[in-house]
C-alpha cells in the first residue's frame, strides 16, 4: 500500500509532555515539516523559550539551545551575527516574548536581525499555572485575574505583532491560528515563508504569531478551546498578514 502521510523526520518519534488539546504539538510539527521541506536541518539552530515549550528540543531534531526567559531574540542575534550562513529560529510563548522579553524582541526587530520567530499566543502563562499574560483578553479568567481581566487595573491585551510590524526592521509579520485544518494549512504556509525569507538572505526579521489553544488553563474542552479562538480571540487578535 502507498504511504500518503508520514511523520516528518525532524519531528521526533516520542510522546510530548503537552496537555491534551494543546496547540504546541501542531506548531512543532509545522516547524519540523518546514525544516525538512527546505532541507535545512543541517544548518538550523532552534531556540527554546522558558514556558511550556522549554523542552522543545526533545521533540525537534535540530541543534537547539534553551535560554533564559524572554532572551531568545538576543541569543538568536548572537548566533546569527557570528553564523550568517545558519538558519536561526526562536520559538516563544506570549509570556516569554510579550512580557519579560519585550525589550529583546523589539530591539532584535528594530535592528532587522535575520532571524525567524515563531510566536505562540495562547493568552495565558501555561507552565506556571495559568496566570494572566499581556495577551490575556479582557474579561478572561486566569489564576491572577480571578474576576476576569479588567482594563483599568490590568491594562489591555498587548497586540505585539502589530507593534513589531510597524518597525522598518521586520520584513514579514503574519498572525495565523491552528483552530481548524484550513487554518493549520495557512499557518504552515506562513511559517514556511518566514523560513524561506531567511534562507534567501532577506534583510530583516520574520515573525509568525499563532493563536493557539490552552484548554487546561482556559478551563475548556479541546474542541471548545478551538471554538473560543475562532469566536473570541480573533476579535482582539485579527488573523492575517500584518506586513510583507
Amino acid at each position, binding site marked *: 500500500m502507498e504511504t500518503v502521510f508520514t511523520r516528518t523526520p525532524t519531528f521526533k518519534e516520542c510522546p510530548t509532555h503537552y496537555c491534551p488539546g494543546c496547540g504546541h504539538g501542531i506548531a512543532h510539527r509545522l516547524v519540523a515539516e518546514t525544516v525538512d521541506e527546505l532541507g535545512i536541518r*543541517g544548518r538550523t539552530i532552534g531556540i527554546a523559550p522558558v514556558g511550556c515549550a522549554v523542552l522543545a528540543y526533545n521533540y525537534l531534531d535540530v541543534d537547539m539551545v534553551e535560554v533564559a526567559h524572554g532572551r531568545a531574540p538576543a*541569543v538568536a542575534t548572537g548566533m546569527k551575527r557570528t553564523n550568517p550562513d545558519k538558519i536561526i529560529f526562536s520559538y516563544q510563548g506570549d509570556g516569554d516574548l510579550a512580557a519579560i522579553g519585550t*525589550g529583546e524582541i523589539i530591539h532584535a526587530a528594530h535592528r532587522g536581525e535575520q532571524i525567524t520567530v515563531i510566536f505562540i499566543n495562547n493568552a495565558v502563562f501555561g507552565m506556571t499555572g495559568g496566570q494572566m499574560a499581556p495577551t490575556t483578553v479582557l474579561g478572561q479568567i486566569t489564576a491572577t485575574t480571578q474576576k476576569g481581566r479588567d482594563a483599568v487595573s490590568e491594562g489591555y491585551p498587548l497586540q505585539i505583532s502589530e507593534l513589531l510590524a510597524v518597525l522598518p526592521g521586520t520584513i514579514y509579520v503574519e498572525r495565523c491560528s491552528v483552530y481548524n485544518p484550513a487554518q493549520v494549512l495557512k499557518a504552515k504556509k506562513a511559517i514556511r515563508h518566514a523560513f524561506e525569507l531567511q534562507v534567501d538572505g532577506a534583510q530583516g526579521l520574520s515573525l509568525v504569531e499563532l493563536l493557539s489553544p490552552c484548554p487546561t488553563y482556559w478551563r475548556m474542552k479541546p474542541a471548545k478551546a478551538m471554538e473560543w479562538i475562532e469566536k473570541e480571540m480573533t476579535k482582539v487578535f485579527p488573523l492575517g498578514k500584518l506586513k510583507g
Partner: protein
Amino acid sequence: MCGNEALGEAAILAGCDAYFGYPITPQNEVTAYMSRRMPEEGHVFLQCESELAAINMVFGASATGKRAMTSSSSPGISLMQEGISYLAGAELPAVVVNIMRGGPGLGNIAPSQGDYFQATRGGGHGDYRTIVLGPSSVQELVDCMPLAFDLADQYRMTVVVLADGILGQMMEPVVFERKQGRKLPSKDWALTGAKDRPQNIVRSLWLGEGVLEELNCKLQKKYEQVQKNEVLCEQFAVDDADIVVVAYGVAARIVRGAVSKARQEGIKVGWIRPITLWPFPTEQISKAADEFRLFLTVEMSLGQMVEDVKLAVAGKSPVLFYGRPGGGVPTVDEILEKIKQLTIPEKNRK
C-alpha cells in the same frame, strides 16, 4: 594606550570572534575601540539595547562555538548576572570584563573594588563559580585577555576580568604579543547545525530526579581542577616579613610603593598579590601564615577580599584591614602610615 583600548586589542589578538556591549562609564573606550577594530578584522561588533541583551548575545555566540566577550562596569555587570548563571548551567565559555566603579546603586564613576564579592561568589543564582582575574597594570590586563579566553574554553566557564576605573583609563606602554595559546579540547558540543550527526542540545534545565544534583557535582569537580591548577599569585619579601600586606589590582600597586618605602625605613614588611581572585591563593597565604605575622589587607572597598584572606590564614595570625570605599583611592603615604601603626610584639619580631 589606555587600559580599555588595550584590553580590546588584546582580545582581538586572542581570537575574539564577537564583542557585544552597552555603553557605561568608565569602560566606554572598550566599546568605541571594538566598534572600529572588530569589523576591520572581519569580526562581529554589536552595541546592544541593554546589558541583559549583551550577555545573552555572548551566550548565543558561545553556544555556536565562537569566542565571545562583553565588557561593562558594576551596575551593568549586575544586570548580566542572570546570563552568567545560565552560562554556568549550560557550561558555555565566556569572557566578561568588569571595569569597576563605585557602588551600591548608581554609585559614582570613580574607581572601586566593590564588586569582589559579586565576582568571586557568583552574583547570579545557583551553585556555580566563575574564574576571576585581577590584573594590576595595563600590560597585565593585556596579558590577561588570551589567558581568559583559553581558561574559558578549557573549562567551559565564564572568566571575569576584574579591573577598575583607574586601570581602564590609565595610559601605559604595552607590548602586544600573539602567543601560542593552550591546547584546548574541541567544541564538539557546539550548535553548528546537525549536519551528518545527531542533534546537539545546550541547556541548563535538568528536571529529572537527581539529575541536577549530578550536574552540580560534575561542575564542582571541574571547579576543583581549576583550584588545583590555575592559581596565580605574586609575592615580595615575605620570608623575613613581620607584616604581610595583601592586595590585588590597582590597590596592590599602591601597596607595592608603600612597602618599598617601609623597607627603606627598616620595617620588615612584604606583600602578596593574588592575580586569580577565584581560585584564590589560599595555600600561598596559609603558608605565609604558618609563622606569626600581621596580615594587612588593603582594598578599595570596605573589606571583601579580606574574608578570603581570613579563611586562608585560618586564625593562625591576626588579619587587619584598611580600605577606602565609594571611589576613594588610598595614597602610598596613607598605607605607609597604616603599616607604621602596626606594632609587632617584641617576642614575635624577626
